[in-house]
């Protein structure tokens, strides 16, 4: 990059309040983020997965849900790179289309739980008192059940197993951790002098919340969102594995692992490969999350 001074605005670097604009926040961000090999690998994995989801129909000549009973349980060949499943569908095709299901569920559920959770967390932190107590008790209760049990309960009790039911269950399960994190973040931001300064010049509660607390609590939220996608994809795979999540014939990686387990001894790829896809996706998003956290960590400013 050329060395001319780049003036940054507060909109830069994911809404972070910007110190004196000596160096572009974006460039600093990029240097940390792309400087570490693991983060870069994670980023590339995420990009590839997103592109795969978008261009799925162009990548494979097969149909992911249409049965072909004449070609059941084939071994890998030049036509079916990973072989076919018990209903004669091309495994690689189903994995490719599975990215769509995972990403749609991952993004929607995380978005839903983040919106509700962040709102609850900010409210609790801002008002304190009985509002705080009430909201914290609610999160206590939600977190008293193992997340997967809560999700099983919701998805299982709502008949059908459609995509939206799964998203609802996963999103519901994610509210409490998101709320706790946001509340903790907002409470610590509140201690800062600039919030005090805002009060001193007579800013309203609402303005302080939206212009001071939220932007400063935002970067960790971005990290939590990115990491959350991995968690939700794992949750979805788990529900589908148990048979409570996305229902056949929609290609879901967790469901494919379950189907494949029956043929483990003869066709191990049927359950190995979808699991590997889950791992790659989760790993990618986790690394991107780690990278963003390092890149926006103010304690590392100046060091890197």
């Amino acid at each position, binding site marked *: 990059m050329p060395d001319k001074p780049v003036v940054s605005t507060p909109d830069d670097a994911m809404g972070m309040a910007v110190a004196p604009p000596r160096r572009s926040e974006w460039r600093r961000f990029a240097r940390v983020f792309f400087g570490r090999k693991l983060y870069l690998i994670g980023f590339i994995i995420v990009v590839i997965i997103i592109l795969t989801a978008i261009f799925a129909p162009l990548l494979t000549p097969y149909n992911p849900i249409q049965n072909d009973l004449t070609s059941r349980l084939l071994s890998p060949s030049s036509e079916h790179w990973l072989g076919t499943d018990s209903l004669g569908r091309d495994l690689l095709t189903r994995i490719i289309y599975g990215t769509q299901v995972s990403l749609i569920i991952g993004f929607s559920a995380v978005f839903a739980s983040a919106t509700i959770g962040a709102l609850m967390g900010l409210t609790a932190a801002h008002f304190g008192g009985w509002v705080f107590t009430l909201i914290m008790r609610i999160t206590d209760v939600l977190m008293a*059940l*193992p997340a997967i049990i809560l999700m099983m309960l919701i998805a*299982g009790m709502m008949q059908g197993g459609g995509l939206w039911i799964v998203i609802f269950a996963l999103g519901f399960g994610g509210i409490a951790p998101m709320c706790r994190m946001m509340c903790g973040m907002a409470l610590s931001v509140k201690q800062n002098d600039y919030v005090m300064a805002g009060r001193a010049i007579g800013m309203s509660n609402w303005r302080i919340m939206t212009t001071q607390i939220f932007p400063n609590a935002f970067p960790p939220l971005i990290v939590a969102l990115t990491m959350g996608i991995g968690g939700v994809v794992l949750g979805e795979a788990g529900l589908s594995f148990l048979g*409570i999540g996305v229902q056949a014939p929609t290609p879901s990686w*967790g469901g494919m692992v379950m189907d494949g387990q029956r043929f483990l001894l003869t066709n191990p790829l049927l*359950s190995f490969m979808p699991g590997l896809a*889950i791992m790659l996706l989760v790993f990618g998003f986790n*690394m991107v999350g780690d990278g963003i956290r390092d890149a926006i960590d103010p304690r590392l400013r100046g060091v890197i």
Partner: protein
Amino acid sequence: MTAYIIRRILLGLLTLILVTMLVFLLVRLLPGDPVMRYMANFTGTGQQNIMTPEQHDALAKELGFDKPIVEQYWDWIRLLLKGDLGESIGVQQPIAKLISEVLPRTAYIGFLMFAVGTFGGILAGIYCALRRGSWLDNTITTIANIGMTVPVFWLGILLIYFFSYKLGWFPMFGWVAPWDDFPKSCSYVVLPVASVALGGIAGMARLTRSCMLEVMNTDYVRTAWAKGLRERVIVFRHQLKNAMIPVVTSLGGTLAVILGGSVFIETVFSIPGMGRLMTQAIFDYDYQVVQASTLIFGGIVIFSNLVVDIAWGWLDPRIRYE
């Protein structure tokens, strides 16, 4: 300290009461008619509309679903207080009997998973922090990063394939109680425990490592070095005790994750435990069993959180006087 403990116990009880409400509401308010589902399941036809409205109402009355929801909740709580978990409408047996059969199994493997996961993870984390940058640290950290992303059930399947099928070291699936035949039970338990413990080790190792590293940079550790204390004293008395605070706090959450993992593992390895019971009850729409088993999972987590809170108060005196 006594006041602190009493406060925590009361808070735990309150949470438990709220959990009963949450579970009850979720089970009752989510769309779906329990009577029809019960009937469809009972006849095994999968059809839900085989009853006349009169038959439907009679059955609803028999199962107690015709009362207002508050009254139903109250009936349930009254039974619970008497120590009665109700009766399964699916298997037509007292739920307490069903649960007393399966709970010891889940408790046993859950305890093993938890013990292996936390001890292994904490030891690995301490080692990594003390020998930061060594090849073993890099290896463990990489494995931990990957371990966080592995779906438990998939790891279980992988282990079955390689260690049971290819190498023949362990049985593929099933369950033998340790109180019946201990040596045999051990070989059955290794793979399930390993599948879940890996995730636990990974999470614990990462957390312990970063907490230890954070403590290393504090003033009191620098002072301890400057005083000329021996390394062992500094590591164990100054660093470890402080670094353990967040680790101990996370134990309750870890137990919840491990309990969740055991649900998958019971399915993969066909272990008839709590997770299987609950999954089956969900498929059967056996409301009473779903309620009871969820409540028991919640109770375990709340109890362990209580223990953690008390341990936390002991480790960190500041917390007692909040």
